């Protein structure tokens, strides 16, 4: 087996128990090298716990986990030489300046003083932080802090980078910056394991996604496969006249061949659909029935919908 074929991450039956809670409960993952792998799940699904075990911060209570073929428990030191972690809570020191944070890490990785300074300066330029380099990190905005955090993580040129909910709480511009950074990092051959609560984010960045709930994988595949597996999404309709809603509900139910929900808004209706073309036909039928439509939208399935659809199936 060549080095190319070794999975960046391979876990089987990974378990972590806190008291009576099985935070991670038999997790099986295989992450191919050189790509972004999304781990999607709600709060409390066990994403962070899984990442902490893979980054050697927590001891697994059962099962196995290997990073590039190295056991996270027995070869922890080797694994530490291959990975970096940007945690959900900024893992930079607020009471030091941006430059000091990076120089400290550079020194700890074995760079001599001058080399650590050089590297820190290059990173500050690459991450657009030169102006803030001499300021204490506690004065940084959320986006700047997150950028510094990622800069600190790639200082060692890791082969595997863990990004635990890297955009939670960021404004849209900062979020886009983080996305661009992730793409640039992967282009250098680093594997990225990205945890997120947003389907949208996994969709934009990840080559494959694992959906996890209650500590185990409930679905895995490319973003397209996952979405196809639960249908096209939801049709949202807003009528001009509330009086026409019962009529519109009949037309939609017939055209879409699916139950239609009345929303709290007296002019709104919604329905799950499997096929975008049927939705287009339904719009034509509403017009033919003389119903005035102000808004007709086909929404991508939200994480809630993917998630509910998947857990329903798991329960069935």
């Amino acid at each position, binding site marked *: 087996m060549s080095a190319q074929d070794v999975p960046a991450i391979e876990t089987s039956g990974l378990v972590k128990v806190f008291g009576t809670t099985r935070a991670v409960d038999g997790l099986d993952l295989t992450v191919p090298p050189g790509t972004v792998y999304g781990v999607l799940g709600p709060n409390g699904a066990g994403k962070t716990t899984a990442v*902490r075990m893979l*980054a*050697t*911060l927590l*001891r697994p209570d059962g099962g196995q986990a290997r990073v590039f073929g190295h056991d996270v428990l027995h070869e922890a*030191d*080797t694994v*530490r*030489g291959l*990975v970096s*972690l940007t*945690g959900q*809570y*900024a*893992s*930079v*020191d*607020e*009471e*030091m*300046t941006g430059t*000091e944070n990076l120089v*400290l*890490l550079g*020194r*700890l*990785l*074995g*760079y*001599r003083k001058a*080399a650590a300074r050089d590297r820190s300066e*290059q*990173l500050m*330029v*690459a*991450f*657009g932080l030169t*102006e*803030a380099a*001499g*300021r*204490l990190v506690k*004065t940084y*905005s959320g986006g*700047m802090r997150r*950028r510094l955090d990622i800069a*600190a993580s*790639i200082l*060692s*040129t890791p082969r595997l980078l863990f990004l635990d909910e890297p955009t939670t709480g960021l404004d849209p*511009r900062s979020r886009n*910056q983080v996305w*661009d*950074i992730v*793409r*640039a*990092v992967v*282009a*250098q051959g*680093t594997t990225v394991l990205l945890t997120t609560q947003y389907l949208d984010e996994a969709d934009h960045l990840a080559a494959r996604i694992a959906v996890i709930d209650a500590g185990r994988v409930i679905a895995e595949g490319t973003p397209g496969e996952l979405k196809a597996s639960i249908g096209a999404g939801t049709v949202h309709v807003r009528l001009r006249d509330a009086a026409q809603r019962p009529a519109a509900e009949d037309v939609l139910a017939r055209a879409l061949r699916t139950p239609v929900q009345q929303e709290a808004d007296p002019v709104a209706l919604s329905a799950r659909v499997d096929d975008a073309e049927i939705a287009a036909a339904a719009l034509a039928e509403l017009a033919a029935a003389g119903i005035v439509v102000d808004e007709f939208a086909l929404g991508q399935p939200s994480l809630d919908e993917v998630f509910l659809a998947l857990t329903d199936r798991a329960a069935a």
Partner: protein
Amino acid sequence: MTTTTSETTTVPYVPAAETIGAVMAPGARPPRPSALSASITFGWRAMLKIKHVPEQLFDVTAFPIMMTLMFTYLFGGALAGSTGEYLQYLLPGIMVMSVVMITMYTGVAVNNDIAKGVFDRFRTLPVWRPAALVGNLLGDVLRYLLASTTIVVVGLIMGFRPPGGIVGVLSGVALLVIFSFAFSWIWTMFGLFLRSEKSVMGISMLVLFPLTFLSNVFVDPATMPGWLQAFVDVNPIAHLVAAVRSMMNGAWDTGEVTWVLVSAAVLTVVFGTITMRLYNRK
């Protein structure tokens, strides 16, 4: 110091794949640093924190001055007939007491670091594992030195005249700092497993008050009831005070000095080991 320019509103940052690629280009990765060099780097981090928030040195300057003044003038007349005479007896003891009391901030600092997540990063680095904690303690050693120096200087101004001379005073301070370094591992341990800064403070007080007051810091234990003398006899702080006092008096009590050095070694081995186990498991 820090300049507070606000985030500029000129051109928003746009990440460029080339510049990020350039810094990630796999150059020769340097060899991993030695245990010593990693610890010193963490010590440098502790220094930087003092540099950015110098007010935090109040506890190693103002507090010791207050202790020395307070107890000398409060007890001096009653216990030794005059404050001048009492100072000769009290100074080595109050120096030990002040420094041992400020060791508890070590645990508070460790607990703080963990709460903020920065330790997660340190723990994923391939460096000698105890380095982060040893580095913190190296920073604390500086604080202990500063506190000891403050007390000695205040004492000299107030009329303390140590018969042991410079050598006696410096050796006494050195022994105190060695013991405090070892003793701090207890607080590092508590800092790792207690859940909040407040509980670390609470436990420290609970341990430190009896250890420092039920000793020979303020009075000769000969006047105490037998059961209390028995406690003082095994109290490591009492041995430390006796050793430091003997050094400053120029009549070294080798038995006490050895006792202190051995107990420092035992404390480091026992609590250092427990601390590292907790640190690795956390």
